[in-house]
């Protein structure tokens, strides 16, 4: 599970990546290819700021997809993320604008709610043996329904802290800049990578995804891992919602419809096996960037309609699932 660079020990042998890195490398190559094609075809495409803007425009998706990576690593799935994102934006907008709550308190509350919902789904899945698909489907309905209970109309946020988060650009030198949300996303990615690779919890997540029975017999805390990943995913979704409300400065019940699919697509394109047990947070980041690159390419092209995005995402998804299928061989 450690990320020791391979192929460095024997200088003479040609570099042959381990099988588990192949999806990751494929995603990386695709990303480079798309960027090269974009730079060649469109003016102003080949700049570092375009790449940074992909982080800016997708910071919430990054966070949500990281949470999804945990769930998928255990072989589960979380369909509720999009709804939880939407609920977080609506609830925070409503509490801040209509009830005059303190932003810090609101964010804490929203994160807590996300984790509680995740916990409830995790308990349903692990203790009561309900399929992840259907338990999180209930979560999807619940969170989306709660959105409409809070507010059906879009609420715009004028709070000072939120507008500051939306407009602040952190300079990186050379005229490049990012938003604070990107920093939050980077911290989440770093913490997630640490937890997955360097803590006992992370190891049991991989073990449960690899083979739950063996993990249990080895004495690992299977329940803690299986429920924990849904709590993490709930937390990440709620945080994604907070970032989205920074980005759009509003809370709207129809936000993030279908985001669960984008998140799952990003995880799959990032090379995480859907049967669990194998994958990296870094891959998910690359997966999100592929989705962001598709959007950016279509935006730069200008002649393609936005629905082409869905078809391109579908095609890329298909190719990567096929790749996974070939690589995982008999395991699938």
């Amino acid at each position, binding site marked *: 599970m450690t990320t020791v660079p391979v192929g460095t020990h024997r200088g003479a042998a040609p570099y042959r990546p381990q099988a588990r890195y192949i999806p990751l490398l494929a995603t990386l190559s695709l990303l480079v290819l798309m960027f090269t094609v974009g730079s060649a075809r469109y003016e102003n495409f080949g700049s570092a700021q375009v790449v940074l803007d992909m982080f800016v425009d997708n910071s919430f998706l990054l966070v949500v997809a990281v949470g999804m990576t945990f769930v998928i690593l255990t072989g589960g799935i979380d369909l509720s993320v999009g709804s939880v994102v939407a609920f977080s934006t609506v609830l925070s907008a409503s509490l801040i604008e209509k009830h005059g709550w303190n932003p810090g308190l609101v964010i804490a509350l929203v994160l807590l709610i996300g984790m509680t919902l995740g916990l409830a789904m995790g308990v*349903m899945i692990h203790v009561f043996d309900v*399929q992840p698909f259907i338990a999180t489907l209930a979560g999807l*309905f619940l969170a989306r329904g709660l959105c409409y*209970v809070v507010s059906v109309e879009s609420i715009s946020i004028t709070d000072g802290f939120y507008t500051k988060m939306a407009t602040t650009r952190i300079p990186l030198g050379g005229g490049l800049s990012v938003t604070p949300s990107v920093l939050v996303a980077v911290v989440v990615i770093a913490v997630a990578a640490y937890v997955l690779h360097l803590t006992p919890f992370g190891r049991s997540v991989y073990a449960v995804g690899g083979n739950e029975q063996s993990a249990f017999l080895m004495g690992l805390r299977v329940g803690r891992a299986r429920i924990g990943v849904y709590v993490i995913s709930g937390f990440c979704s709620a945080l994604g919602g907070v970032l989205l409300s920074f980005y759009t400065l509003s809370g709207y*019940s129809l936000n993030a419809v279908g985001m669960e*699919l984008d998140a*799952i697509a990003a995880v799959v394109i990032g090379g995480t096996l859907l049967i669990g047990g194998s994958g990296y947070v870094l891959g998910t980041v690359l997966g999100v960037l592929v989705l962001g690159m598709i959007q950016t390419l279509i935006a730069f092209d200008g002649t393609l309609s936005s*629905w082409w995005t*869905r078809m391109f995402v*579908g095609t890329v998804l298909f190719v990567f699932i096929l790749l996974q299928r070939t690589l995982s061989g008999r395991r699938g």
Partner: protein
Amino acid sequence: MTATVLRHRLFWPVTLIILLALSNLFFTPSFFSIEVKQGHLYGSIIDILRLSAPLVMVGLGMTVVIATRGIDLSVGSVVAISGAMACLQISHLGNQNSLGGVLTAIALALVLAAAAGLWNGFLVAGLGIQPIIATLILLVAGRGIAQLITDGQIITVRSDPFAEIGGGFRFGLPVAILLAAVVFAVATLILRRSALGLIIEAVGGNAEASRLAGIRSRRIVWLVYAFSGITAGIAGLMIASNVNSADGNNAGLWIELDAILAVVIGGTSLRGGRFYLGGTVVGALFIQTLTTTLLTVGVRQETTLLYKALVVTAVCLLQSPAFRARFGRRGSRRPGPTPTSVPREKVPA
């Protein structure tokens, strides 16, 4: 005798439908009255039946897919594609009322829907991809395809023959109900009067064992996904015809979730094996009755999702052997041998 009735898997869903319907009497005393206007039947009950027809259709397809231990997430997109195709063809007709032209359009739409189903079948049976992921591809890309067909517009049609499917009447009943009833009857007849139903259950129970027993399980999987595509296509025609237009974005949105819910309420386990077409119909009717009741009470359309969440949770927990063991009456009354109570290797979802 009463024990058998109580223990029947459809006892609770049916009871709930009846209770829900009765509760409507408080708000609309005329709920159960059925009027005859111009030889057609009108009334809330008829409305519920008519509105549930697309869900019944999608649910029937979903039932057989789930019976093979699969799932079809793409039905909502197929609904949109089929409606878009039919409306596009009709809008190109010189005379939108020509029966031949409308039938051709319908046929084209259904062929496209069947092709979508076969694509899913190819991914699942041909390439061996997990059903949930295989059909996710079409769920993502399918709305794009529907938008491509309609060129991002909402296509409006004025065609009397086409409007018949969703809003017409035959023998005093809405055509949509009759259509759903016919498909249900034909599917039941084919699946239960031939070995096909049993074979599907065998494949869902254990694909490898059924293959060793001489069943061509791959062919069966292709077949069920194609069937699901076609039923979703018919549902798409009903929905498009009901509003005389095709909306690539919103037609059939969330219907895959409702359909799965209907199947689960109907007693078919998501773990495959035994399936109950009649149960799915009851499940679909239950969902529509719940929606209609909530709307009559004055709950907003969107908030009905909240109640659906509660229903999904309740149904899942009641079906969960672990939950029954913990909270059920221990030893006194053993739950019937439902498919869910058989411990099985977990299906990675």
